[in-house]
């Protein structure tokens, strides 16, 4: 536990040691703003809510932004050779995997948290359901965790950050697409039976994000994100074990 905290602190401080963190946060906030006010029609909607204008874009926004956080996690360690330093310290592999993931997740949480002026704005303009907004923030953060776990695992596969980024975008997309209404329609035509369509749909982040973001915190959705994170961190550890010496 103590080791995990020490490693976590170094990782998190690492984000802020270079301008990367600040650039990332600025771009994230900028994109959130543009999407909400231009694409989402925040004012035109005339409703005191963040759902349709703000949170709805998160699954797609994260496809590009989360791999940008995760791409360096292991690729950089392997490229610099620091992985050898790290893994010969008296720490275990699970501690390393967990601390890196947690630092990235907390960093994503900080970026997400900095969108709070939007929340202040809706509260100033009207009387929104703050419970739903909170649930949406939780859902968004959980989804970020899921994408990050995938990205971390993929970052362990290669020494090249660009490759890690592209691969992570693709894998993240695979976990998003089945939930899109257009894809659902196509699937309904191709796959025999409702159950199969629902099964495919249940693998989509969109589905689970959507249901929490509506304000219904269902255990199944929480279990889904927790399992995605767990499975990919486990894979992450295996990939490191196999690839560390390359």
């Amino acid at each position, binding site marked *: 536990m103590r*080791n995990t905290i020490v490693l976590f602190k170094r990782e998190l401080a690492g984000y802020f040691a270079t301008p990367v963190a600040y650039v990332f946060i600025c771009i994230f906030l900028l994109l959130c703003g543009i999407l909400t006010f231009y694409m989402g029609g925040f004012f035109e909607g005339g409703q005191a809510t963040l759902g349709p204008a703000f949170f709805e874009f998160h699954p797609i926004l994260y496809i590009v932004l989360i791999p940008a956080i995760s791409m360096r996690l292991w690729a950089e360690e392997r490229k610099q*050779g*620091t992985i050898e330093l790290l893994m*010969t310290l008296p720490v*275990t592999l699970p501690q390393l995997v967990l601390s890196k993931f947690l630092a990235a997740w907390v960093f994503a949480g900080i970026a997400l948290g900095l969108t709070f002026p939007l929340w202040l704005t809706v509260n100033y303009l009207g009387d929104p359901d703050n419970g739903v907004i909170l649930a949406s923030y939780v859902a968004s953060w959980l989804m970020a965790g899921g994408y990050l776990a995938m990205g971390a695992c993929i970052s362990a596969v290669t020494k090249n950050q660009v490759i890690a980024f592209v691969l992570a975008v693709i894998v993240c997309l695979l976990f998003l697409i089945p939930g899109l209404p257009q894809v659902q329609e196509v699937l309904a035509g191709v796959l025999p039976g409702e159950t199969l369509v629902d099964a495919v749909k249940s693998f989509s982040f969109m589905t689970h994000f959507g249901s929490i973001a509506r304000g219904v915190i269902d255990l199944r959705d929480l279990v889904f994100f927790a399992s995605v994170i767990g499975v990919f961190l486990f894979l992450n550890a295996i990939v490191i074990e196999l690839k560390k*010496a390359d």
Partner: protein
Amino acid sequence: MGAMIEIENLQKRFGAITAVDGVSFTVERGTVLGFLGPNGAGKSTTMKMLTGFLPPTGGTARIGGHDITTDGLAAKQLVGYLPEGAPLYPDMTPEAFLYFIAEIRGLSGAKAKARVAEVAEKVSLQKVMRQPIETLSKGFKRRVGLAQAILHDPQVLVLDEPTDGLDPNQKKEVRALIRSMQQDKVIILSTHILEEVEALCSRVIIIAGGRIVIDCAPGDLAAKSRWHNAVRLELATSEAQRVRGVLAEQYGAEHVETLASETSGTSLLVTTRDRRPILAEISQRAQKDQWKLDGLHVEHGRLDEVFHELTRVGTRI
């Protein structure tokens, strides 16, 4: 008490390639062990297994009694390791980096700060403690790597090519550092530089093709050279013919070589099959026959020649 490091039939295969093929040796406290071998001989791989980075394919090693395959964490606690090329986090400052290492090594707060300061002083890093590591010179980076390895005052220090890529002054500094730490520790260092082994090590292991080809004291290594105890005579070219004849008669023609001389005269090198000392005999003869010599030297043996012979043939002596 047993040896600090016991390596038993250590093996590592990468697919079809056998990088380390059954290496066994033990090292006692107070030993500085030089690990020599051509590139790709398995030096680094052996060190990586010893430090717990790579799991062995076969065999094992014990550090202070802790088996690296079953009790790796305890073994790692006893070891300080400088990986090849001294990888570091470029964005961190030496101060932050060493503090991080101190925390991972179980120190915290004031104790960690004090120890970081102590180590920084030992490797003369005080002036650059707050600069990002990426802005430091190679020599300073290497010192940060060394500081990291010795921070917890480990009983075993494993240094993979600690002086590689440094300029002669920096090499000298790093060697002085290593020498200052050798008491009561086991230091294993790999190098390509033969003079380094002579200067630093109390024992040398040469590895080639994943196997140990020789394990001895650096002095004994020179004795393996066919030039060990050979005598070199420098003399005027006019004189050389006569002297050569006399020497060839006594030691056999094949044991007298004419070397390209550095000066205007000629150099003759006299060797013997059993590498016995022959300086006294030759010098007596020279006086008796009144040879006009410009110089008379004893060769101690050439490490590079021994190294080449051993690793080229790849067989045990």
